[in-house]
């Protein structure tokens, strides 16, 4: 039996039910795919461009990998390229930032998720969002014009330099505080109510419930928050560029001026920079190291969330 071709009786030919190739749809899908693919390009671009210049840097006879990682002097003018002074400064500011941000961040998050009334929470959360939205340059201004004079008043201006890593680190802690708080708060809020009720039922106090039941249950989220905060602190630039000082200095003393990795990149790149000079190549080597450090931290944080997350119904 043959099927009527023109569908006069209401039936359509069978082959027309096949999915039609539509040029427009294909083109659009291609464009969308390209948009998604651009992000891969960006990563490849970062690794390639930074790697290329860094390679040029390490090819330079004045530089060796061993010297780069173990040298205690960073002075491009006399061809000393040891990254340690920059790393110690980054370490000092980061440690100070975390000293502020971890305890305060956890406390504020616990307060918001366990103690605060819904009213308080709805006023405090926007305040946190505002803090998170303030550009880092403003924090830099704050570090230089408020925190540094404050430290100099407390500890004496002969002890504390005008530019010092401590002041930059403390203000960086305030910068990271909202980040750690909001991520931690999300993790704490995701812990189901029933766990808390069970704890109360056993006679635990509110504080015991918060610290011994809720916090451990949300530990993966909290750890991830701290690691993301850490990575943010290491990559933070403007605060240290303004407040930590110019010129590498191998010291862990928070009252002395020292230049971090990011601070050094900004100072060199902001000056008169000629391409293919060793200065130009050297900042790319630092940038590449910075990229890998933060990338590793971010991946670790994602892995922690994925692997150790307690899933509740």
């Amino acid at each position, binding site marked *: 039996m043959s099927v009527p071709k023109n569908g006069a009786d209401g039936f359509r030919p069978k082959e027309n039910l096949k999915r039609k190739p*539509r040029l427009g*749809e294909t083109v659009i*899908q291609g*464009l*969308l*795919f*390209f*948009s*998604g*693919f*651009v*992000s891969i390009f*960006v*990563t490849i*671009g*970062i690794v390639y461009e*930074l790697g*290329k210049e860094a390679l040029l840097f390490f090819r330079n006879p004045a530089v060796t990998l061993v010297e780069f990682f173990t040298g205690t002097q960073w002075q491009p003018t006399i061809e000393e390229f040891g990254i340690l002074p920059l790393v110690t400064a980054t370490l000092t500011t980061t440690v100070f930032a975390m000293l502020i941000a971890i305890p305060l961040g956890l*406390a*504020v998050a616990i*307060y*918001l998720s366990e*103690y605060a009334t819904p009213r308080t929470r709805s006023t405090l959360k926007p*305040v946190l969002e*505002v803090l998170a*939205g*303030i*550009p*880092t*340059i*403003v924090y830099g*201004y*704050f570090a230089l*014009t*408020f925190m540094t004079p404050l430290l100099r008043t407390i500890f004496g201006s002969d002890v504390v330099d005008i530019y010092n890593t401590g002041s930059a680190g403390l203000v960086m802690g*305030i910068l990271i505080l909202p980040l750690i708080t909001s991520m931690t708060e999300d993790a704490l809020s995701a812990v189901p109510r029933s766990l808390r009720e069970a704890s109360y039922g056993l*006679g635990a*106090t*509110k*504080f*015991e419930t918060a*610290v011994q039941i809720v916090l451990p249950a949300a530990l993966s989220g909290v750890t991830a928050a701290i690691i993301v905060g850490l990575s*943010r602190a290491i*990559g*933070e*630039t*403007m605060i240290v*560029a303004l407040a930590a000082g110019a010129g590498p200095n191998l010291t862990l003393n928070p009252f002395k001026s020292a230049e971090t990795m990011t601070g050094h*990149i*900004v100072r060199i*790149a902001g000056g008169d920079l000629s*391409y293919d000079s060793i200065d130009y190549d050297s*900042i790319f080597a630092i*940038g590449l190291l*910075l*990229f890998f450090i*933060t*990338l590793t931290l*971010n*991946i670790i944080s994602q892995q922690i969330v994925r692997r150790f997350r307690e899933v509740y119904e």
Partner: protein
Amino acid sequence: MNKAAPIHPEFAQNLDARHRNGTIWHLVIQASTIVGIIALIAMLLNIINGALGYVAYEGRVDPATLSVDGVTIEQQSKDQLIALLQGKLSKGAYNKLDTEKPFAERPRSEIYQLILERVVRIEVVDNWNLWQSLTQADQIKANVAQDYPNADLKFVSWLTSDFVTRPQSSEPVTAGIRTAILGSLWTILFTILIAFPMGVGAAIYLEEYATDNWFNRIIQTNINNLAGVPSIVYGMLGLAIFVRTLEPITSGALFGFVEDATTANGRTVLAAGLTLGLLVLPIIIINSQEAIRAVPRSLRNASFGVGATKWQTVWSHVLPNAMPGILTGTILAVSRAIGETAPLVVVGASTAINFDPTSPFSKFTTLPIQIYQWTARPQDEFRALAAASILVLLVLLLSLNASAILLRNRFSRRF
């Protein structure tokens, strides 16, 4: 203790201590929260403190001596001002200004400013912040009278409408942030042009088209990682790619823009905008994905049910419903881009330009860059300028954020 409820003695023994412990920690936690709020308030007060206060001015030349027939320079016409400038400046200096930008093309306000800057030369000899001005007013007045007998002591706000509309200048008295604001707007324009379509496109691809295979998972992981890359690394990427490799495009040479004073070897508005575009791309993608994911499956199925194609479904049903969320995310990303400083320093923001950007191939400076440069200078008067610019920046960002929140509350639908 209530006798009706038997409590194990051992339990009752440390009950008080546990309650005390709980109360103490409650207070500690509350205090931490208050410390956080105090930090925010201290920051805002510190900025306001810097933007107001006493200023002692001293002019090298008394403006009254420049009056012609009793008409003060404030009221003189543009031609009179140009003549005055020609008379007072050396020939070389005058010609140099004329070649930078012909006097005939400059508006009167600019000429007037040049007079103040080059002829009258009013200078800030000293300034004090708000706190000092309020608490030590008498002492300041006495000091100024003693140290600078000719100086004019005024209580000023550094943030004025003039400050916002004047071009940049190396003199604090005549400095303004119009150049920087326009630079920021130009840069952001290109950031949005590149990041919005790309970001939304990528989000649609990942949410609507991508199947769960290894390649798409890599794209997704990669986007999450890119969101955590420090902004300065994007700056270096921009420097290597947009400024250096693509110099013919970003400097405008490819499009027939001849190298002149306004082109900057690829260190242009366009390069800066593209760099920031890449920086905010992951943020826009992640936010848009969340918005698209919130559109319920049933809407798509209904659309497919009446015979729509995939793209028709996305375009007419998914996108309109996800749009408020996408826009909110984009506004937040844009406000992040407006506040970025480090990548633009690396890309090569100009340190001192006093003409407005006019094309994608102009040299640029932006508001945060201007704040950075002023804050980095040791003189107090520049710090005051920085404080005033920060206020402008914060007002801009707060209004953007507020509009994002309004948009979210107004249009967000729950399915």
